[in-house]
């Protein structure tokens, strides 16, 4: 469960990215955060993963107040999440396989089981045949799917994706959204930010709309 209550975020330069935002996403729910660029979508997601801290208000994830966690506890909070970053953050000096292996190495996974999990994650996103390739040789859509494989490999209970479909063709984007929906169907909490609501393809989803840092719907 993710819960925001009266959260505001003001940056040192005075820019107020979020203003008095309150909402709750239940465990197993899938929600989209929609809004124009600069509306505060990325800031909202970064607050959840403790990459930034709110100026006022509290962010609660699985019963923990994220803003009050000390530095040593933050890595363990982050292991609850599968994060798909807007700028992907792939490691280009490692193979596709090694990129997906990284989260398991971080959580100290036993290596044989880790190999199986990495293959399963790559299979899920359709990249199993490219495990030895370098990320730079992949297409944009493939790189995005690689990010998703890295996010899901440790089987997180919460999947957070920041603009996962930007810069992708409609066809690719629909593929990506279908992958997220399949995770939602097996009980994972999914939170996706996007500026493009059309991708939903008419399926009823919860949509949180941000405008200039305020939640409008």
């Amino acid at each position: 469960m993710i819960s925001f209550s009266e959260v505001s975020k003001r940056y040192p330069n005075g820019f107020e990215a979020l203003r008095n935002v309150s909402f709750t996403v239940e465990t197993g729910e899938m929600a989209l955060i929609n809004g124009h660029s600069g509306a505060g979508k990325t800031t909202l997601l970064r607050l959840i993963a403790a990459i930034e801290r709110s100026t006022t208000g509290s962010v609660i994830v699985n019963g923990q107040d994220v803003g009050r966690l000390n530095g040593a506890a933050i890595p363990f909070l982050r292991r609850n999440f599968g994060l798909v970053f807007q700028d992907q953050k792939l490691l280009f000096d490692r193979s596709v396989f090694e990129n997906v292996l990284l989260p398991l190495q971080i959580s100290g996974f036993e290596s044989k089981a880790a190999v199986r999990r990495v293959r399963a994650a790559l299979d899920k996103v359709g990249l199993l045949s490219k495990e030895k390739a370098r990320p730079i040789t992949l297409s944009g859509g493939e790189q995005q799917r690689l990010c998703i494989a890295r996010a899901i490999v440790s089987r997180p209970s919460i999947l957070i994706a920041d603009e996962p479909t930007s810069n992708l063709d409609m066809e690719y984007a629909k593929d990506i959204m279908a992958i997220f929906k399949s995770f939602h169907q097996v009980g994972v909490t999914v939170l996706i930010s996007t500026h493009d609501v059309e991708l939903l393809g008419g399926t009823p989803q919860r949509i949180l709309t941000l405008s200039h840092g305020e939640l409008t719907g």
Partner: protein
Amino acid sequence: MNIWFSYHWHALALAFKRLALIPFSTLLTLGVIGIAFSLPAGIYVFLENVETLSGQFSSGPQLSLFLKLNATQSEVGKIESFLKENPHVASFRFIPKASALEQFKESPGLAGVMDGLEGNPLPDAFVVTARDVSTETLKTLSRALSELRQVEHVQLDSAWTQRLDALLKLGRLAAWMLSVLLSLLVIAVVFNTIRLQILTMGDEIEVAKLIGATNGFIRRPFLYFGTIQGLVGGIVAWLIISLGIHLTDEPVKHLMQLYETDFRLYHLSMGDSLVMFLFSAGLGWLGAWLSVVSHLLKIEFR
């Protein structure tokens, strides 16, 4: 335990991989560390060898006691009983003037010198060995002996070994100071290589932090990296010293044969080598740790 092992294995493998990625710079670093260590360690080996050698040459804490020419038999007897009772004296040997003359005549080249003389110009003498080598004992003894009746001169045969000992002490002090300075150099070298590593690995560190890596997880490969560099640097130093000994062993042996002494150069002992390897590895670790602590904090999220 299993997780602990897998973390360390992963960190060690990563450290080796990173070293192998920059072979040229790794070789240079190892060379610098090796040379830095080989200097004080080499001096240490040299001093050890000189000390062993001086031990072979010196005849122990000996004093020569020359009597006046007109000393009588009973006066010699008094000195003899004094030497017997003195607690500082381990042993002594009396050389009467007659046998001294015999010895002198037997020395090649000197025999003819004596023939022109009337009578025996040589005095009776005692060769005294002191109970211990300390300067204090030797001084007390030599003063006591020179105050005896009919003693002309007391000569401290081991004075030169004492001077050598003092020199060796000075050399050892110099080696220590050099060790301290070059240890700082090694720390600085490792510090800097790790700093460069961290700078080029900003992305990797950032991603790892974002997906839940603890600071320990990020630190560990760098610490292994520094420790490996230190350890291998120490081994390089050991090899440099071995090479030096190998190259000088024959000439030294030849030189020693001219002095009719059988002497071989000693290498660092097993224990000393081990201490050096541990020390160099420890310095590598320290340099890496300082670097990681001061630079890792600066990696922030974009």
